[in-house]
């Protein structure tokens, strides 16, 4: 090469070819410095450590997480020599690194999206319970997905589960999940709910669920979205944008479908309640009928009593006029012609007497 004379442009092109061959992609951890956005499109910053610094360039659309000066980040990009002879890194991805930076980036994006109303309760939609079809976005090899399917199968049946197999961590995970979301939303036979699932992990593992574009895609999904990521203590922006949040993939299964044994007990309870209602109603009808019957019997008894009283009163009257009763009181009945020496019959209570009239006064 030393005898070959190159133009400056050729030299830069050759250097870039060599760099591209030697370092097609580099991943560097460093601290952000002199962060700025030009014309709302181009992002410039320096990536530095205690001793060195490198210029970085990317477009605003590639910036998926909020960053600011002093933040520790991991940058994925390609080294390049510009035509002005300036060495820089063309960045494809930048993500916060370390607990402090991740937390800071999370808080900045959370505040921004909250201000836009992305997490408003009024945006939340309900999910059919239990759904007949569920689309799942997850890694089919992950423990979280296996737990979800296992628990779903234990709890309920008859559900169509459509799984989009994606990476749930790493640089391309957010884009894969976004593509899966778009694909599922475009299906003519739409699932009733989309569940985005991933088991627990470190803050860095779960940082994909704080990706701005992914969070926005969840918020605009035509189909209601459930996010079940990480363990209970973790909260991601994807959780906040989702219609329903589950603390874990297992919890997602518990939220989505009822327990079949509870449902069976509920069916038994319903039959029991029908039996009780029916028995209560029949008892009521019997009691009402008894009341009516008792009323009729009371009326009949009253009528009989009245009749008895009437009969008794009539009997008393009849007795009063009974000649025998008169005779019992000491009176007598005399029959015959009233003439001197005429024979007459006298009937007393106890005797029938024949007598002759001796004198008529």
């Amino acid at each position, binding site marked *: 090469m030393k005898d070959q004379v190159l133009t400056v442009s050729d030299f830069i092109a050759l250097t870039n070819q060599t760099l591209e061959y030697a370092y097609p992609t580099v991943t560097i951890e460093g601290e952000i410095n002199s962060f700025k956005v030009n014309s709302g499109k181009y992002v410039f910053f320096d990536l530095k450590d205690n001793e060195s610094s490198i210029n970085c360039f990317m477009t605003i659309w590639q910036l998926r997480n909020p960053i600011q000066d002093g933040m520790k980040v991991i940058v994925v990009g390609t080294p390049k020599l510009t035509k002005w002879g300036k060495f820089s890194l063309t960045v494809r991805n930048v993500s916060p690194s370390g607990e402090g930076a991740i937390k800071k980036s999370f808080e900045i994006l959370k505040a921004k999206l909250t201000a836009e109303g992305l997490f408003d309760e009024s945006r939340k939609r309900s999910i059919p319970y*239990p759904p007949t079809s569920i689309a799942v976005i997850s890694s089919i090899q992950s423990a979280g997905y296996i737990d979800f399917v296992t628990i779903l199968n234990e709890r309920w*049946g*008859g559900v*169509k589960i459509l*799984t989009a197999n994606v990476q749930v961590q790493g640089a391309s995970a957010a884009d894969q999940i976004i*593509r*899966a979301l778009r694909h599922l939303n475009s299906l003519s036979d739409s699932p009733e709910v989309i569940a985005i699932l991933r088991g627990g992990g470190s803050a860095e593992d779960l940082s994909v669920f704080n990706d701005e574009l992914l969070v926005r895609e969840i918020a605009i999904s035509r189909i209601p979205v459930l996010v079940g990521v990480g363990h209970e203590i973790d909260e991601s922006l994807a959780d906040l944008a989702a219609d329903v949040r589950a603390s874990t993939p297992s919890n997602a299964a518990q939220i989505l479908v009822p327990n*079949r044994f509870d*449902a069976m007990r509920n*069916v038994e309870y319903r039959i029991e309640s029908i039996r009780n209602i029916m028995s209560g109603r029949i008892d009521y009808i019997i009691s009402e009928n008894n009341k009516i019957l008792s009323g009729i019997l009371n009326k009949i008894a009253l009528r009989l009593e009245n009749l008895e009283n009437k009969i008794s009163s009539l009997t008393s009257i009849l007795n009063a006029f009974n000649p025998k009763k008169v005779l019992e009181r000491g009176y007598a009945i005399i029959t015959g012609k009233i003439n001197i020496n005429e024979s007459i019959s006298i009937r007393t209570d106890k005797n029938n007497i024949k007598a002759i009239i001796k004198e008529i006064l």
Partner: protein
Amino acid sequence: MKVNLQKEIEELNKIVEWFESSDFDVNEAIEKYKSAEKLAKKINSDLKQLKNEVTVLEENFEKD
């Protein structure tokens, strides 16, 4: 035979609602009770047997 568990449960709920309403006739109630009991047996049998159907999409989401 395709089992529509949800439809069966809704049907049972309707029968329960009928019993809870004031519109009660003993003869009709006996008939409805019989159908509720039959339906409950079917639901419980379906609940025991029904399986989910898992399909993994063939699409590759790694690239656009």
